[in-house]
């Protein structure tokens, strides 16, 4: 207790990819005045990539993350394509798209089945000791097994193309390093029916249990914001190419047809002393009013159709959650992930059926033709930008990475504040309430190891707690 305020700390926040803590500030009446989602990791990729040849960047930046290395691999290879100024072979584009869909599938399956299903199926007030994937295996063994196998299928898609499940170094500036074999295509086709069945089952299950979480949906990140993502021609859902679109909560298109190369015109980046994670915002609306969300929820809110029949039907049902308008509660990120998994399975199937998918013409060769290149792609968690400046030989001079989780930073903080204000009154804080705050953050499926790649000064916060749990003193080094 320090004067009239009290600080509640949740550290660490569990079942996220990375490490973070949340602090909640109360006034003397026990009302929540502020809540912050602190990212306490530090990486440094933007700095130590300087001086490396651009051809090595996909594999180096792929190492940013073990969950979504493919996203970095592809965005980096695309930035490399831009620097070589080549149109890569169509076959290479097809294979890269396939790998990205495998990535969506495995990452979304991880988020839904391993990390979030325990909250959704075992109840947010359940015992934390069993409210995890092991508890899920006990309570719903079939679903847990199917979920794990679905993630495995996504991983196998990646392995069949890139040679390994995690950190393949397969996409390169100019294309990809190896084609898909007939044998691997057959292997993937065999697993497709099971994957489709699992996604459909999970989708039905979510639709069934969602009404039970109406209160959470209203209190966990339900607020108006902008949404951003890539869309294809005629506004169709997109995951690898296309143009950037910003839409608002009413369904209006705020900015459209933006070449991802021009992202700096639209996106600004702010920094706060208490987090390693930057705070991107939509420039025209200023900071922090220019808050926007990216990822599954945003993609489904800005697109006009899904492009495949089953996903289209699921998307229509998803949008009906808010009467056809954009869905504003972050709780429905879970729902959006399931719709995207359905789209991924359908698109993997059609992709594997394309006659040119086995072509070995998969790599274009070129020298350094531009000194600046941007690669943008949709990662499972949202739009990812790799922006490189090179010298005439192709050595990196400057590297800027804008990560999906970073772009959701403002919205995650807003979610934490909203949840804290809704659930925390007075001194008594039952386990279930803190869980809901964590679950609010978890709905974004943040990847903190990915998003703290930048080099900067280390913010340090020291909080001294008294025997009563209150804050006695606090020092901050900026």
């Amino acid at each position, binding site marked *: 207790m320090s004067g009239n305020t009290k600080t509640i700390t949740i550290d660490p926040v569990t079942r996220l990819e990375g490490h973070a803590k949340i602090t909640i500030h109360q006034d003397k009446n026990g009302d929540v005045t502020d809540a912050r989602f602190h990212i306490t990791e530090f990486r440094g990729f933007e700095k130590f990539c300087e*001086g*490396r*040849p651009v*051809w*090595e960047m*996909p*594999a*180096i930046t792929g*190492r940013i993350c073990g969950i979504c290395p493919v996203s970095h691999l592809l965005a980096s290879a695309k930035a490399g394509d831009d620097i070589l100024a080549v149109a890569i072979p169509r076959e290479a584009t097809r294979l890269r798209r396939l790998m990205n869909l495998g990535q969506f599938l495995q990452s979304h399956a991880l988020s839904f089945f391993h990390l979030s299903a325990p909250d959704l199926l075992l109840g947010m007030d359940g015992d934390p000791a069993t409210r995890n994937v092991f508890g899920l295996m006990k309570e719903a063994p079939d679903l847990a097994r199917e979920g794990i196998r679905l993630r495995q299928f996504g991983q196998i898609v990646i392995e069949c193309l890139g040679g390994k499940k995690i*950190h393949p*170094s397969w996409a*390169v*500036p*100019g294309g990809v*390093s190896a084609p898909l074999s007939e044998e691997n295509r057959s292997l993937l086709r065999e697993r497709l029916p099971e994957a489709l069945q699992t996604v459909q089952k999970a989708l039905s299950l979510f639709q069934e249990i969602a009404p039970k979480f109406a209160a959470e949906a209203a209190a966990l990140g339900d607020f108006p914001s902008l949404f951003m993502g890539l869309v294809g021609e005629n506004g169709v859902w997109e995951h690898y190419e296309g143009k950037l679109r910003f839409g608002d909560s009413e369904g209006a298109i705020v900015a459209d047809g933006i070449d991802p190369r021009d992202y700096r015109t639209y996106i600004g980046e702010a920094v706060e002393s208490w987090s390693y994670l930057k705070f991107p915002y939509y420039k025209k609306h200023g900071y922090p009013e220019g808050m926007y969300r990216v990822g599954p929820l945003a993609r489904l809110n800005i697109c006009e159709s899904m492009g495949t029949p089953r996903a289209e039907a699921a998307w229509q049902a998803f949008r009906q959650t808010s009467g056809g308008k954009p869905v504003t509660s972050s709780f429905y990120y879970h729902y959006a992930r399931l719709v995207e998994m359905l789209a991924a399975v359908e698109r993997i199937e059609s992709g594997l059926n394309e006659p040119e998918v086995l072509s070995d013409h998969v790599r274009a*060769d070129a020298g350094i033709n531009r000194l600046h290149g941007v690669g943008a792609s949709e990662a499972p968690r949202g739009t990812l930008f790799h922006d490189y400046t090179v010298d005439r*030989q*192709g*050595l990196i001079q400057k590297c800027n990475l804008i990560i999906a989780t970073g772009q959701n930073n403002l919205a995650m903080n807003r979610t934490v504040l909203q949840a804290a204000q809704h659930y925390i009154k007075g001194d008594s804080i039952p386990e279930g309430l803190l869980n809901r705050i964590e679950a609010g953050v978890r709905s974004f499926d943040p990847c903190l190891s990915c998003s703290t790649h930048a080099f900067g000064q280390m913010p340090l916060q020291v909080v001294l707690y008294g025997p009563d749990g209150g804050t006695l003193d606090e020092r901050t080094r900026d």
Partner: protein
Amino acid sequence: MTVTTLTINGELVSASPGASVLEAARENGVEIPTLCELEGISSAGACRLCLVEISGTPRLQPACVTAATEGMEVQTDSERLNRYRRMILELLFAERNHICPVCVANGHCELQSRAIENGMDHVRFSYQHPDLSVDITHERFGIDQDRCILCTRCVRVCDELEGAHTWDVAGRGTKSRVITDLNQPWGESDTCTSCAKCVEACPTGAIFRKGSSVGEMEHRRDRIRFIADARKKKEWSP
């Protein structure tokens, strides 16, 4: 000339006349780990990985530059040798910036292979993290000093087989670097013939084909051997 008879690891063996201890061992199916040695060019004794014990000599001797002599008793495998070899490997890893997972030679690197064979699972010495440069001014090739172990294969192959002597070593001690011509960018070298022998000879990912991504730098040592053999046998002489 008669053969040389010596004992390797307690076995009485014979070696070709003029053979080194390393050659004598190989002729008799005994493997000694090497890094700087390359078939087809002279030996330098630079890496010290092929150190062996020779009876009557307290110091360890590099097998590649020690002549096999009559009655010599050689030990190629012992706890002491393995300890030293591991230390040499660890020092090589600590000296520069070897990051296997993102290296162009990952999976095709002799330094990496020797470390795996030796069972080197960690480095006990402080990494030096020197600030080194990458030179990709050459039209087709690049040199990343971070990955160079100063084995001088490039220097020898360029001098002895190509006859260009583009490569040499500058500096002393930890400041030693392989350089092209008079320490100028490779792309500005007057002597380089772009023959790629140094690229094929390099044991690590230090010298590489431009545009290579992780794990793509495979080396064709057989090409070096082919050229060396052909020269020796004067196959190209009129």
